């Protein structure tokens, strides 16, 4: 019913307008109105983000899941030369918008208490972040996509750099360096695609839908694939370009970690699905073994590293890398179970790791340390927190009945059909995740409370109850009834796979590709 309204531009614009409004009012506020400003800014931001949430719920309800193509498409002239403003969503992107719109209000709620200084600026940064994140998932123009994709890092840098921990400069610098390398290479690839479209099509274009039809020779595909891969692998992050993530998480404020883990890590996986597979199918097939290897290394290696961490956030950060390993493994299995599982795992990880970072935030706000050894015996004074933390720990471990299980088992089933080796390696992650997650739980929640500083610790507040309760509800709901997600994504994923198979089916004019294909199909 709303499909004729420009709902996607609205979703991007509303938080942006909110941010500008806050910035404007903040400028006008005199010194004596500062306190009031600081009080009201979070509420304004919350209101704005709730409007976005409402609108994105409308979007998903209105979304026609049986249509595999792009919907709510909006186009307008923009830079010229085939570079236009294009937005639209399909089954692959629409749920990420909902996830973003769902996590942002929770982050704002949590930050209202935990952020003490420069709240207004913080809220501005957050609304800006929301706008850009939604933009990434809406963009149908490659240039527009690229701008969102890179610009989204700026508010994130600010959130870490201004409101982060003691070592925040190092963390954001590391983050920056890694992403810079990937960005430059991806930009070069985008420019090549644009140039090539001018050669092959009547008019040059950066329309993401049209670029799929480019005929790219095999060796060029290889280079372009690698250029995109450089960017997505860092975002994912995949081993061995993952070392920025633990530092960024440790230094980021709670809500920053939630968004980083919940949404920003998904940009890599989204990019693989949106570009690598449809644009460079032959190269994707060619590099699938590489991805599988890196995925399995990520799962085993980072799980073992997580097991040895002494900082709660670092432990969860490393476990995120392992969980993203399941995503890449599933996507490059090129079958329904694998890709659906990868998508599901991304959504689920957004909820679960977000929730885990909120949990760390709960105790950090009270004790100002994330040192695992500081805690112990929390269940006595924080029984409700302990129950929530248990649920999310179990979801992280992939216990059936929680959303964590569905993604893991689907990606493994998908990968198994291609290579039992890969699935068996990933399955080891089932053991290792239990080791580190239960280790963390035991050291913080169980045991005798020996640290008397914990005598004053209190159980979750109403606000925290609400945040964790909502996340818990969806963690279980998606675990019991994953069709809520998979039904929405199914049609688009099916089309992606059928196009992929058509593109990689032994082409008459390029018989030299045949042996590689035989190995995969």
């Amino acid at each position: 019913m709303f499909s004729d309204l420009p709902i996607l531009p609205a979703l991007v614009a509303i938080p942006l307008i909110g941010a500008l409004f806050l910035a404007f009012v903040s400028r006008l506020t005199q010194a004596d109105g500062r306190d009031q400003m600081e009080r009201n800014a979070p509420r304004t931001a919350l209101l704005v983000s709730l409007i976005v949430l409402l609108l994105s719920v409308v979007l998903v309800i209105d979304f026609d899941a049986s249509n595999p193509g792009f919907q709510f498409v909006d186009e307008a002239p923009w830079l010229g030369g085939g570079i236009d403003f294009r937005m639209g969503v399909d089954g692959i992107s629409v749920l990420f918008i909902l996830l973003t719109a769902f996590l942002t209000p929770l982050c704002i709620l949590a930050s209202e208490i935990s952020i003490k200084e420069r709240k207004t600026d913080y809220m501005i940064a957050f609304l800006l972040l929301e706008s850009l994140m939604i933009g990434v998932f809406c963009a149908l123009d490659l240039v527009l996509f690229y701008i969102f994709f890179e610009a989204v890092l700026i508010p994130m840098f600010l959130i870490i750099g201004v409101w982060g921990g003691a070592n925040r400069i190092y963390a954001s610098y590391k983050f920056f360096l890694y992403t810079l390398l990937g960005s430059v290479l991806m930009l070069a690839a985008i420019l090549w695609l644009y140039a090539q479209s001018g050669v092959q099509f009547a008019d040059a274009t950066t329309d993401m839908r049209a670029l799929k039809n480019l005929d790219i020779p095999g060796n060029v595909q290889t280079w372009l694939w690698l250029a995109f891969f450089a960017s997505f692998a860092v975002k994912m992050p995949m081993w061995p370009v993952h070392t920025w993530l633990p530092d960024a998480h440790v230094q980021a404020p709670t809500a920053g970690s939630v968004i980083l883990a919940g949404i920003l890590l998904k940009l890599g996986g989204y990019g693989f699905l949106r570009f690598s597979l449809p644009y460079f199918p032959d190269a994707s097939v060619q590099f699938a073994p590489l991805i599988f290897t890196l995925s399995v290394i990520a799962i085993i290696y980072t799980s073992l590293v997580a097991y040895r961490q002494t900082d709660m956030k670092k432990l969860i950060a490393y476990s995120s890398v392992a969980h993203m390993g399941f995503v890449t493994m599933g996507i490059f299995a090129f079958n329904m179970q694998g890709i659906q599982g990868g998508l599901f795992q991304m959504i689920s990880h957004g909820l679960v790791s977000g929730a885990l970072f909120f949990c760390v935030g709960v105790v950090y706000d009270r004790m100002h340390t994330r040192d695992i050894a500081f805690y112990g015996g929390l269940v006595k004074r924080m029984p409700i927190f302990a129950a929530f933390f248990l649920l999310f720990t179990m979801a992280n471990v992939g216990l059936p009945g929680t959303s964590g299980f569905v993604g893991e088992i689907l990606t493994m089933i998908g990968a198994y059909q291609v290579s039992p080796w890969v699935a068996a390696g990933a399955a080891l992650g089932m053991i290792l995740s239990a080791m580190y997650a239960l280790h963390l739980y035991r050291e913080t929640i169980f045991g005798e409370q020996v640290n008397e500083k914990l005598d004053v610790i209190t159980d979750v507040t109403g606000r925290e109850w609400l945040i964790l309760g909502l996340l818990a509800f969806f963690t279980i709901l998606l675990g019991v009834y994953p069709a809520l997600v998979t039904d929405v994504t199914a049609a688009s994923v099916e089309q992606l796979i059928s196009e992929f198979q058509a593109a990689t089916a032994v082409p008459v004019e390029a018989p030299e590709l045949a042996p590689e294909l035989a190995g995969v199909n």
Partner: protein
Amino acid sequence: MLYQTIVFAPLIGAIIAGLAGTRFGGARLPEKASMIVTTGLLFLSAILSWVAFARIGFGDAPDTTITLMRWMDIGGLKADWALKIDTLTAVMLIVVNTVSALVHLYSWGYMEDDAYKPRFFAYLSLFTFAMLMLVTSDNFIQLFFGWEGVGLASYLLIGYYYKKPSANAAAIKAFVTNRVGDVGLALGIMTIFLVFGSVEFDVVFAAIAENSDRRLDFLGLDVNAIELIAMLLFIGAMGKSAQFVLHVWLPDAMEGPTPVSALIHAATMVTAGVFLVCRAFPIYEVAPITSGFITIVGAFTAFFAATVGLVQNDIKRVIAYSTCSQLGYMFFAAGVGAYNAAMFHLFTHAFFKALLFLGAGSVIHALHHEQDMRKMGGIWRKVPWTYAGMIIGTLALTGIGMPLLGWGFAGFFSKDAIIEAAYAVGAGGGNNAAVFAFWMGLIAAFMTSFYSWRLIFMTFHGRYRSDHHTFEHAHESPWSMRVPLIVLSIGAIFAGAIFYKSFMYGYGGFWHGALPIEGGAEHAMAPTNLYAAAEGYESAGEDHGGGHHFPLWVLFSPLVVSALGFVLAFFMYRNGGTERRIAHAAETGGSPIYQFLLNKWYIDELYDVTIVRGARWLGDVFWKVIDVGIIDRFGPNGVAAFTAGASRRLSRLQSGKVFHYAFVMLIGVSILIVIGLRGFGG
């Protein structure tokens, strides 16, 4: 609605007790209310389970599958939330719900002084629900849900005394060891989907014949697909049912409260592996190699666990090793194709082993949480009900009964059926695993009798060996604990005699297809002449492939070795023998063999040195050497050091403020885009 009520009543109880009872969310139910709700719902489930069992096994209620809801439906991978009800499930329903209901009741007394009763009862009910989902699943994925769900409940209940480091360690050990098995199960499920394109029992089992020669490449090995599936599923079963190599968690699980040990670590959860093999019997019937492997693992576990049980001093650990050993019996029964004998032993074992655990709990309760048998003795007059229950449980476990008369305690029927099945298959020739199993089973039966009677003598007879204060205050347990003992005693006495015909011969169409009556090997399941002679089932024997004629020594040997075990225990531990032995062990440390057994063959130590420390070491290497030492050093830090030096000379950009980086990046990106686009497009 009958079946839905049976399965979901415990879940409702768990939710009520877990949310309202623990002040989760504000409102708080009185403690008693939580206990009444959970226990009441469990008794409802238990009674309805018997109704269902009677209708399915003895009435004419048809097997049925109730689909509750779609779960996964992705590109041909279809798994529903469903309740599959057949005789196999019905047997599990009564076992799970009966023991669970009695354990709920028992916990009223046993957990009387506990501060968190609603939490405890919520966990118990949650466990029951997960177990029910496991046994009612109609596909492998829901089975996996129940499988891991009971693992979670087990983790929570082992670590229930959360302040004790040993309890926490045991809880994690149980969960992680089970996960090792679960990897096998998960890979098995993946292989099933690869081979059959489905994970639903009915579809898979129907397509076995046409896939029986299919070969797969698994990790570089060219293997038969069905054998591979059978083996992977069995690895899962080994974890859950504590079979040798993956058994290490079960004795440590005794850190949990005793009612938990009775319910989860004796009667129900640990038997899930046996259930899995029986449920998937169409797979195992065409997987002779794996079946042989199961036979050997089961038989060896029966033997191994019994040897360790001989020398343990903790009353619960003795029974835990006994459980491990009895599970071995069930597995080798399944391995030789006697699935119904395995299920029959699972059924009777649930009664007498829960009885033994609850009896032990009653002793522990009476002696103020003393579990060391060296500090017990002579208390039988103080706890006569408990003593009687323990004696009945021991008679059932050791398989006392009269061959050729068809009379005996529950274990007599089921254990002898297993040993005879192994003998029959072995005597049939060509199956050395079965011969091995027969002898191991016989030797283990001797040791079972010895350690069981040793437990009785050390606990109840002789002189009391600890402080007088405790002895004087020793008291019989309250009725809430006595009633479960009485009910289970009835089961331990009669369950074998009453249900023997049904389980073993499928009388009255008991199984109707849920399990094969004759087993994989031809004569294994034919009625033995021992019972046939006693109860006049000659014709039944002929109906089912002709009665196998066992030599008399086979029929009598289990009873004889049991008697020998009793006699040996009597002479070693009566008339001051216990005191002498304790003193001797304290002085000299005992013989090397004693030390070897006392330390459980040093398997825990072996795992600690290799696996546990290995994982820590690897984690440290990956983190400190590779991540920090190589990737960071030559990656971002190297670049950072380089650019920091360069930019300080070139400009003032390196002001240390991240904002500047962001700003520079934005400008850079914009310039690149503009140049690039103008260059190509313009």
